[in-house]
């Protein structure tokens, strides 16, 4: 019965992943990261993603700080932050976030402040959604690992001892 739980959790994970792919939230680069995870580096994906979260939140704070400053005019600096955000998003497969960055950057290159503000809002929204979903994914995975571990108790030995 516990084994059954692990299977179901795996199905839940796959379903969530499929949804995120379907929504365009994640792309194949995320799968690439998963493939880099193995016994020698069992937490690779969550490690990278947590670094991404940390950096992203810093970037978002910077962007917000820049834009909310009444005297703001340094669109160049904004572009630099956006490039960083775009790059790291692309590296983990965060497709929608990356795409909003692209639009944001376009507005920034036109010195379009209201456009930038709108883009920032959208960016924060997409980022939040991504973060929540990835947390959910990691949670399911943790549960699945636990359930799978319990699945193979020492009971097996009884079968080998006549």
């Amino acid at each position, binding site marked *: 019965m516990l084994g059954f739980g692990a299977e179901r959790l795996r199905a839940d994970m796959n379903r969530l992943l499929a949804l995120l*792919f379907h929504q365009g939230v994640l*792309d*194949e*680069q995320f799968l*690439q990261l998963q493939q*880099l995870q193995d016994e020698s580096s069992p937490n690779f994906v969550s490690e*990278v993603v947590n*670094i991404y979260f940390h950096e992203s939140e810093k970037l978002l704070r910077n962007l917000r700080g820049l834009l909310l400053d009444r005297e703001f005019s340094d669109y160049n600096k904004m572009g630099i932050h956006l*490039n960083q955000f775009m790059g790291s998003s*692309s590296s983990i497969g965060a497709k929608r976030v990356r795409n909003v960055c692209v639009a944001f950057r376009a507005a920034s290159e036109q010195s379009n402040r209201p456009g930038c503000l709108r883009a920032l809002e959208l960016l924060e929204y997409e980022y939040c959604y991504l973060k929540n979903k990835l947390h959910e994914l990691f949670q399911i995975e943790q549960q699945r690992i636990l359930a799978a571990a319990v699945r193979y108790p020492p009971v097996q030995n009884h079968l080998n001892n006549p």
Partner: protein
Amino acid sequence: MAKNVVFSRLRRLEKNERLEDDLSSSCDSHEVHVLAVDDSFVDRKVIERLLKITSCKVTAVDSGRRALQFLGLDEEESSVGFDGLKVDLIITDYCMPGMTGYELLKKIKGSSTFREIPVVIMSSENVLTRIDRCLEEGAEDFIVKPVKLSDVKRLKNYMFGEGREKSQDRGFNKRKLQETSPSPSPTSSTSPEPSSDSSSTSSPSKLRSPTSLNSPTRRFKTSNHK
């Protein structure tokens, strides 16, 4: 895998296994050493893992300046005292604050000690002029980010030193010419196999195995620097 057996790099590549890098193994294990340069922490983590999984030793630094320091090229042109830390390949991001990847490339190719080291440029921007500029300056290859396992596996062809397989895989990554975004519509075949030669975005000109010896495409460019 027995750690003390010396494998030729060719055989290692043919095995195509995921060997884990053993940092405690002796320096004469002929393990390829890659210097990775990227200001993004996320990207450093990823490239480091990609390289380790293809059995490379990795040193990852966050700037061109630090890369030069590591090589001993910073300010003083002191000769390398890094016995076991010889660098077989440098892979660098293009866009970095301070010194760009392009500037780093020029410094390396301008150094008599280090210009033999193949340099690969990574960039998230798919700009042809940028690519051409780097290749003209002597870059071995240009990879459009995000970097994948298939990209890194291809790089191993550049890292043979003396025993080098000549001329194969000089075709640079034309993948970028066929895509504008990192993710085309994911078909149901987006369960990528890292050892597979055909990802949904690869171009036919993307050479892979050391067995294809017949393409001298870019060889002439790098030979000018020798």
